[in-house]
């Protein structure tokens, strides 16, 4: 112990590069984002002028219909996409737990979308969903369904983006659930079987409680990821048609990079960050409390 005291700097030297990087490029930007949201930049007369305006940017935002519409779309997307992805990932993980001669290859094939970057997935799906010549319209036409507008329709565009993000995301979240499922001791299932449990009862009283921590982790991480989902909007829809895919993160991006309104942009980002933290906090609060009640040990 004495030894460490003499060399008290050693651990800090080991830490320094990564710690400086973390603080400067991951934590400090959150602070700058908030600070800059209190500033109004005017370009009158060609000169850039920065004025500290307290919460005026937020005030403008709250009077803005586009912002409220965007918030509504974000809320709708969040409510649909997260449970959908979790349910599908869990379903797939359970399917892939079954023993089969081909299980290794089947599992590997299902992991394909993980290796494909979201921009690539977006581009390919964009072409598949092309209203005039796309593969999907060709395929459904084969079954006598009339061609659909997909990404150019106000009612379908957001659902298309949900589909693309889900196609890309399910395999990724499934990995965690699969690892969690494989961690559950086989004896628990054997014991349940001896007690005459049906497959559903085994799922309800063994799998779910044992997997709760993993599900919670996946739910929180997936929610955080989907709050910033905007690659399909940047590449395919630009928030349209008629703002139907204009989620908050995209509205923030657009306010800054298209209209140079950084005060507005960063107010939106700050609001989104606060919403994300609140939602994640609530998830942790409600789900982990239940966890302690049912935990089997």
């Amino acid at each position, binding site marked *: 112990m004495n030894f460490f005291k003499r060399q008290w700097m050693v651990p800090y030297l080991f830490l320094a*590069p990564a710690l400086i990087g973390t603080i400067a490029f991951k*934590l400090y930007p959150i602070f700058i984002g908030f600070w*800059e949201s209190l500033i109004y930049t005017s370009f009158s007369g060609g000169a850039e002028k920065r004025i500290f305006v307290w919460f005026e940017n937020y005030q403008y935002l709250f009077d803005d219909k586009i912002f409220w519409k965007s918030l509504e779309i974000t809320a709708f997307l969040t409510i649909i996409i997260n449970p959908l992805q979790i349910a599908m990932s869990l379903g797939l993980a359970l399917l892939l737990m079954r023993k089969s001669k081909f299980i290794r290859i*089947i599992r590997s094939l299902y992991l394909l979308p993980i290796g494909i970057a979201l921009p*690539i997935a977006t581009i390919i*799906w964009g*072409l598949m969903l092309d209203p005039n010549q796309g593969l999907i319209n060709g395929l459904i036409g084969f079954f006598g369904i009339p061609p659909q507008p997909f990404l150019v329709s106000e009612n379908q565009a957001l659902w298309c983006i949900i589909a693309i993000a889900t196609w890309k995301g399910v395999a990724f979240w499934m990995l965690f659930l699969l690892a969690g499922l494989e961690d559950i001791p086989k004896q628990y299932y054997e014991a349940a079987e001896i007690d005459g449990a049906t497959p559903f009862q085994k799922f309800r009283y063994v799998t779910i409680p044992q997997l709760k921590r993993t599900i919670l982790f996946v739910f929180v991480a997936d929610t955080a990821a989907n709050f910033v989902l905007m690659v399909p909007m940047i590449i395919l829809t630009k928030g349209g048609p008629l703002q139907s895919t204009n989620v908050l*993160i995209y509205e923030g991006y657009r306010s800054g990079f298209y209209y140079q309104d950084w005060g507005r942009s960063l107010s939106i980002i700050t609001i989104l960050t606060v919403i994300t933290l609140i939602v994640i906090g609530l998830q942790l609060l409600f789900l982990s409390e239940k966890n302690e009640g049912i935990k089997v040990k």
Partner: protein
Amino acid sequence: MIMHFKRQWSVYLWYLVIFIGLIITILPFWWGVAASFKSNSDIFRDLAPINIRAFLPGFSLESYFAIFENDFGRSMLNTFFVSITSVAGGLLINSMAGFAFAQFRFKGDNIIFGFVLLSFAVPADAIAIPLFKMMRQIGWFDTFYALIIPMLANGLIIFLYRQFFLGIPKELIEAARVDGLSWFGVFWRICLPLSVPVTLGAGLLLFVFQWESYLWPLIAAPSPELHLIQVTLGRFSTEYEMVWNQQFAASSIAGFLPLVFIYMFQKQFVSALTGVEQK
């Protein structure tokens, strides 16, 4: 007999569901790769009306030649450069931090570790805009620095190394210290060589992360000479909207390398990713 019959049915049903799922998973790849070897007019001919040829690969390399005339090669080289430097730098600094957390008790260690954990809960895309403003202030905007340096420190990888280093027997390290090895020597000569499995997984994560990044390079380095592969792809999809075969060819090339790496090191990749869960 009835039991047996029922079991059979559930197996068939399982195969059916798995098969449908596989089609949905694989169809975009299959179609994209097949179409990348066709001329543009052939792609459209096979689609309207749709016929089986849409799923058969063509034999034309036209699209592949065309994308390399369109500066795709440059963005590939850029991406290699950025990915490889990020892997090297990221592995070094994060493994050092992991070593510090595993080997030493020091003032503030728990708080600092808490900050590190907090940092990987912050989604990169949420801080992209303030980070972009910061890059402009410090003059890194539109340089390779902006693409590489902010992405090096990574909480997840620090965490992975810490967990691994905690498992190295203390006696081994004490013996080395008694023999007069410096702490850096202990880290460099003893701990790091032992950590091949973590390093493979963590390196792969860093590589894939950079290879697949889109939003940050899009806003931080807009000059065409600095474009990374995903940015170029995004550009193709707007500038050459109707040139489908080039979009497919570029996507196929960009998707190929991460897939090969992930499949080569599937085990390490999965355990690095899910390491968060396994204690």
